[in-house]
């Protein structure tokens, strides 16, 4: 596929996914809310007149397809509605909480990139059975550990016992406060990155151009750094892009454990008080960021690597 057509194709696919996402969320709200949104918004003790007024305001007295149209035109104007609880625009609440989540997510992403790839490289270079067995076992434990349990244990060890790191909050954006939540959030994905980068790198190291490089006198590690690493990076990069979304969404529980004032924790409080517009708005924002980042990485990779454009990429 030529580069321009590939980019267009990916952008169209992104658009379809985003419109679909909005539709799924619309159907979730309008078909699954027991009773109706006006009742949920005003509570059980609302007068029938107040309910009717709000229903009219929200367009709930219109047929479904018309409501769908209204919903879309609101979104086109970046209007995500008004929070039931806070009586403020959902967009402004989300903007208040987004930076903290991005800060945490990016920190976790850096951690898992550095440690995951480092771990994978170590396993590729030192082909010892014992190291491999220990890695597989510890990786499986990292995957099985619930985020909140890991968070509580780390808090206990490093904050309560040793007293070397703050227990929670951002401490006015103090980098020390970032360490524990970022490690907690990154732990499971680090194991996955390590496994993928090991298998991708080991496969690359078996190729004949590495043999040629070795024949020219490069050591294994030189050959890995100068040649194999670059060529083995595509699946890892794709996975990292997907992880960015997983971390954004998965940050919720970490944020709750560490009282981190991000979007996830806010969404949780909103879900608890069943503030549907706020929950749906922030889910929509997080999913949109995820889809855009994914498409962006795909396009960059397709541009750099013709193999991806030809459909050999991990994402197909």
């Amino acid at each position, binding site marked *: 596929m030529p580069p321009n057509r590939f980019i267009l194709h990916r952008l169209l696919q992104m658009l379809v996914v985003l419109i679909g996402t909005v539709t799924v969320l619309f159907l979730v709200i309008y078909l699954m809310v027991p009773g109706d949104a006006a009742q949920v918004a005003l509570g059980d003790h609302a007068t029938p007149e107040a309910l009717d007024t709000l229903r009219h305001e929200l367009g709930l007295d219109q047929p479904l397809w018309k409501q769908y149209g209204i919903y879309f035109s609101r979104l086109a104007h970046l209007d995500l509605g008004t929070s039931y609880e806070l009586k403020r625009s959902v967009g402004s609440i989300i903007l208040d909480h987004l930076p903290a989540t991005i800060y945490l997510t990016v920190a976790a992403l850096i951690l898992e990139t550095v440690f995951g790839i480092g771990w994978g490289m170590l396993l590729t270079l030192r082909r010892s059975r014992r190291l491999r067995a220990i890695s597989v076992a510890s990786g499986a434990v990292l995957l*099985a550990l619930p985020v*909140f349990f890991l968070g509580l244990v780390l808090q206990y060890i490093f904050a309560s016992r040793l007293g070397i790191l703050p227990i929670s909050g951002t401490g006015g954006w103090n980098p020390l406060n970032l360490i524990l939540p970022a490690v907690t959030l990154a732990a499971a994905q680090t194991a996955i990155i390590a496994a993928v980068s090991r298998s991708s790198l080991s496969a690359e190291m078996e190729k004949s151009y590495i043999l040629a490089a070795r024949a020219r006198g490069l050591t294994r590690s030189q050959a890995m750094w100068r040649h194999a690493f670059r060529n083995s990076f595509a699946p890892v990069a794709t996975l990292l892009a997907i992880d960015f979304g997983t971390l954004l969404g998965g940050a919720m529980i970490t944020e709750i454990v560490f009282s981190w004032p991000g979007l996830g924790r806010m969404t949780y409080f909103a879900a608890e008080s069943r503030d549907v517009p706020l929950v749906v708005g922030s889910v929509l924002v997080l999913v949109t960021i995820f889809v855009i980042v994914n498409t962006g990485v795909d396009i960059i990779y397709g541009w750099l690597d013709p193999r991806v454009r030809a459909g050999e990429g991990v994402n197909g």
Partner: protein
Amino acid sequence: MDSPGTYLETNLAPGSALLESNVAGRQAKRSSNRLLVAALLMVMGLVLIALSVPLLPLQDPIATDYDHMAEPPAAGHLLGTDLHGRDQLSRLLWASRTSLLVGVVAIGLALLAGIIAGGAAAYGGSLVDSFLMRMADIFLSFPIILGAIAIMAVLGPGRRNVFIAIAFFGWPVFARLFRSSVLSVKKLNYIAAARVLGASDARIFFRHVLPNSLTPLVSYGTMAVGGAILAEAGLSFINLGVQRPNPSWGLMLSESMGMFEQSPWLVILPGVAITVTVLIFILLGDAATRALDPFNSGPETR
């Protein structure tokens, strides 16, 4: 120039790569079978514990006793009591039923939906196929916990809604796996042979295509049960899953999260219970992948 003799000699001489990899391959196969048996036994152990809980002489997992709050493990309460004086051992064991039930039911629903959607995509022509696969893309763009939060916000918390939330966002992977698996099985010779012998489409599907397409779903599904157990624990931890006073490991942790200093067993035991259970399902999934993989012939294959 290359006689068969020299070919065999160079390639099968002691210490040559081919011979070595064959031996290593057999060893890997044998050790992966052992791993599979061990993992299966552990899962059966878990299921046995969960099933036998009502028959065991346990204390009431829900009855509170405010004279014996947060007591350390002792003769009366082998694993101590929680903040409401409830027996921790009994709650841990009863909660294992919740976890396994959520894992099995939620993934069962996702599997069923995935098989239907994936089968329809594989058989329904290109329009149905691309529609269903784009649907799968859409659902895959939701991180599961986030999607679950949206569902819980709308439907309200509770165990049944945990099933729905996990299945709602869990089906696309099964659908994709089943679709590609059916498409590759459909092309095989024995399907053509069955058709020549006069088998009906339904018979071919249920007797041949379906059973032979399920393999990749089995190993992924096993790991997904672990994932569902983690998701349930997470949702219960943030009070959107199983509701008080019913026992769930995630809920038990959230009730005692401030108690690490005074009563560490209240935090550590449920945490370890979740980790070990999920680990066992990951192991089984991994062992199944290796044992069922016909190309698993070398130590490097994972």
